[in-house]
């Protein structure tokens, strides 16, 4: 069976794969592409705002670009790139051979992918959504054309994919840990993935409900948000932010996890205050659900609600502060090596502290009446999401690149990328705090001369080009590395501490020939310090059970993609409704097949495993 699998073409292999390492690569490529699209949109925004009364991108088109920039970056770039890291690393970090549900893992990816493609089809089919990534109900109901329908349907599809991914990682981490890998021995990134997945599980359903309600209103004559028929648009704001605030932590907790790994590795020191780090992560996740209304301070919820949510929001600063100091003291007394990933990690601390403290400023409700919906807020969340999440994704990509692809990214180019990006980032966003306080509302396509906003906006635009240059150099680095890069060993950084650095780069499809026995936090480091070459096995060498690959996840997602088109145009063409139903039928038939056709997987025989392992050592 396994020999048959190897004869398939590369494309077919990736279309049908259920291997978490290949799915990680799919997430990385797809997320990376959407990141470039979102970045290009950001660049357009900054060009338009470079000078007052500019006419590069005006009115409705500007709104489309700004909406798609936000939506793409959050849902189609940051989320999948986070999932790429999780898929590449977490199963190996806990000593597992795969995730709990390999089939669902593939399904999660393809749902995200088709959702994202659907959303971007809007550009070619009459215009993209234009009501902001928050898509507040009164404006999004007013919006003409199908832009918002693309948003509503595309995000539903990709949202289901994310939900599936979240459940998958929860079960994987609870059930699939290697012997000896207790909860309090799990690497910090695994912990972060665990809490993040729990957040996904509880945060995405409210978004799905909100999107369904909006779909009902826009496509099927519902009245949820139609004030004339008794509807209430504030419901959308609540549902969106009950999802939207945890979403910030869904993105930033894995970032914290990535940095925790990098700080420990390149300081050659165990993470300082590991248990308080775990505690802080769980606490942030918990508090993340209690603070959504701080996005609605100016909605008019009244002073009692505003005061409660203000204080709750401030409370989040405490666990976050604990983390910052723990990272600093991880480096304290260590032996710091400034590799590219470590440079991102080090730069992350001051950058993220800036984003964190402006977050506390925003929490002060009465003062937030000034900050809200101004460029101050734009600056704040870019400091958090770029200074936290994007830095982490870049750091993680450099850090685990050799693990994923077996080749090391060029360090010189990596450092150039870092400096350009770092400088560009602060140049772009620092000044925006002041623009906001000086009276510049967010989401405006232009401003008039003579209001004191010219200089700041120009500086900001210059910074954006630095980041663009950094991205181009990163791409060049990727190309050069894949053409010229040299094969690396299992632990190319030399200071690896966790299990992923104990298996070959890239790892064989079964990850571990023998499931390892974990004897403490930083399992590989412990073995290294005792002078051992490899891990202590927890089982004798034997046949390894692997899941079958399948095309069904692809087809299920394709079915929903088709269905979404059908339902979107049903008011225009009556036959379109049947396309919608047909698409759903494709999906259901695939689910039916999955249910009735037994899938027992296959075994890689002991001899084959031995052969592969020999190849690795040689």
């Amino acid at each position, binding site marked *: 069976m396994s020999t048959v699998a190897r004869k398939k073409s590369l494309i077919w292999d990736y279309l049908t794969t259920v291997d978490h390492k290949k799915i990680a690569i799919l997430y990385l490529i797809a997320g990376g592409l959407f990141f470039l699209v979102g970045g290009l949109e950001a660049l357009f925004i900054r060009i338009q705002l470079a000078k007052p009364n500019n006419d590069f991108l005006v*009115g*409705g088109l500007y*709104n489309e670009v700004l909406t798609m920039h936000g939506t793409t970056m959050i849902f189609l770039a940051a989320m999948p790139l986070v999932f790429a890291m999780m898929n590449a690393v977490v199963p190996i970090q806990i000593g597992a051979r795969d995730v709990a549900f390999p089939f669902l893992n593939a399904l999660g990816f393809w749902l995200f992918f088709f959702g994202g493609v659907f959303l971007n089809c809007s550009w070619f089919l009459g215009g993209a959504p234009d009501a*902001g990534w928050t898509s*507040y109900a*009164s*404006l999004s109901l*007013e919006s003409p054309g199908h832009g918002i329908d693309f948003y509503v349907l595309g995000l539903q599809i990709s949202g289901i994919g994310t939900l599936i991914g979240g459940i998958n990682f929860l079960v994987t981490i609870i059930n699939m840990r290697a012997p000896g890998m207790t909860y309090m021995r799990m690497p910090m990134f695994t912990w972060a993935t665990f809490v993040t997945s729990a957040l996904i599980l509880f945060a995405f359903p409210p978004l799905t409900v909100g999107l369904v309600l909006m779909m009902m209103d826009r496509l099927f004559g519902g009245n949820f948000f139609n004030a004339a028929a008794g509807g209430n*648009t*504030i419901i959308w704001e609540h549902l969106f932010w009950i999802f939207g605030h945890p979403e910030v932590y869904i993105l930033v907790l894995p970032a914290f996890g990535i940095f925790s790994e990098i700080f420990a590795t390149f300081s*050659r*020191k165990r993470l*300082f*205050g*590991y*248990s308080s780090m775990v505690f802080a992560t769980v606490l942030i996740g918990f508090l993340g659900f209690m603070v959504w209304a701080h996005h609605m301070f*100016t*909605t*008019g919820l009244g*002073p009692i609600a*505003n*005061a409660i949510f*203000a*204080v709750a929001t401030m409370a989040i*600063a*405490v666990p976050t*502060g604990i983390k*910052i*100091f723990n990272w*600093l*003291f991880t*480096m304290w*007394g260590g*032996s*710091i090596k400034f590799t590219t990933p470590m440079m991102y990690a080090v730069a992350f*601390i*001051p950058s993220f*502290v*800036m984003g964190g403290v402006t977050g*506390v*400023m925003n*929490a002060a409700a*009465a*003062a937030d*009446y*000034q900050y809200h*919906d*101004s460029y101050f807020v734009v600056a704040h969340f870019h400091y958090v999401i770029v200074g936290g999440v994007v830095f982490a994704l870049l750091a993680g990509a450099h850090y685990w690149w050799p693990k994923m692809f077996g080749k090391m990214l060029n360090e010189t180019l990596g450092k150039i990328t870092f400096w350009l990006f770092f400088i560009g980032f602060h140049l772009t966003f620092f000044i925006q705090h002041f623009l906001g*306080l*000086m*009276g510049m*509302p967010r*989401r*405006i*396509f*232009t*401003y*008039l001369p003579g*209001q*004191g906003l010219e200089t700041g906006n120009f500086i900001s635009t210059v910074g954006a080009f630095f980041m663009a240059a950094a991205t181009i150099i990163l791409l060049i680095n990727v190309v050069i590395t894949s053409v010229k890069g040299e094969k690396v060993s299992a632990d190319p950084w030399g200071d690896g501490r966790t299990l992923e650095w104990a298996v070959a780069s890239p790892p064989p499809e079964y990850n571990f020939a023998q499931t390892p026995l974990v004897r403490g936090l930083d399992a590989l480091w412990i073995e290294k310090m005792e002078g051992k070459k490899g891990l202590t096995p927890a089982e004798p060498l034997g046949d390894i059970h692997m899941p079958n690959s399948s095309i069904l996840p692809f087809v299920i997602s394709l079915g929903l993609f088709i269905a979404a088109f059908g339902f979107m145009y049903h008011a225009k063409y009556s036959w379109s409704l049947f396309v919608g139903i047909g698409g759903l039928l494709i999906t259901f038939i695939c689910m039916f097949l999955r249910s009735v056709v037994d899938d027992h997987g296959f075994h890689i025989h002991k001899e084959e495993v031995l052969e592969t392992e020999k190849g690795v050592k040689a």
Partner: protein
Amino acid sequence: MKKWLLNWRLFSLFSVMALLLAGCGKPFLSALQPAGEVADMQYSLMLLSTAIMVLVIVVVTIIFIYVVIRFRRRKGEENKIPKQVEGSHKLEIIWTVIPILLLIILAVPTVSATFKLSDVKPMNKEKRDKNTVVVNVRANLYWWEFEYPDYGIITSQDLVVPTDERVYFNLKSSDVKHSFWIPAVGGKLDTNVENNNQFWLEFDQKAADKAKGVFYGKCAELCGPSHALMDFKVKPLPRKEFDQWVEKMKNAKPAATDAVAKEGEEIFNKSCIGCHAVTPADKRPEQARTAPNLANFGDRERIAGILKHDEENLKKWLKDPDSVKPGNKMTGTYGKLTDAQIDALTKYLMSLKVE
């Protein structure tokens, strides 16, 4: 002694920051140059939170710089294995407790200010003092209506208010959600489609003088293609002048004198009056008031909220509104006008004055 030192340091930090920030932005627009009680309250909260946050940043930065320089892996240390420290309860308690204390220092004034800013009891209809000024603000795609229910007058685009007293606002929207924001005078509040929001602002006379008598207002919630152009202006007047203005508004009637303006009035009455009223006392229900009231159009600060107030710009606006404000609701509601007609209309509109 130590406490005094800390106070002194905080004070100097405060004044340095205040100096720095005051250089930021224009007095008619910037939240950093507060022009009234609300903005003052918010500004001091900003300063307090910034001070605390700067303190945090300074502490982190000092440790950060020390660590990054001191613990670099130097030449000859390639094989050095540092001591694997698990943590320190003492340190961890310190950096849990101190932030909590700092946050309490910030939380108390925050909560108190939040309640103060939402105190709208004096606008209660039954018990309202006859001197209390209440303005009903209605936001529309992309213009603002200001109704003074106690005086029976309506104006739009230019908000006129008395200085040095609290003015109360009822906020709502007639189409999509907008947000009412006069940065220099105070924070924003949304105009929702399904309910009234209420708050108050106070306009400082001295600051108004510094801003040359006009504050800039903005729509702060994305509302469509011309969101960026949905500006309004605020003209704060001393109470006496405000009362005079109200009296003039109550009695205002259009009075076209010269022939061209008369011709313009005819065109207006044929094509425009269905939506635009030209008297401040407009008895129609708000659903019927689908366009700005033009009673004091000649006194306005801007054409369409953004263009300089002159005849040339008015002609440009009348000729092709969409080129000025994409997505506005006036485009296409009247037939094509000849240049002569536009000239006449312009004359007439510019003659609508109360001052």
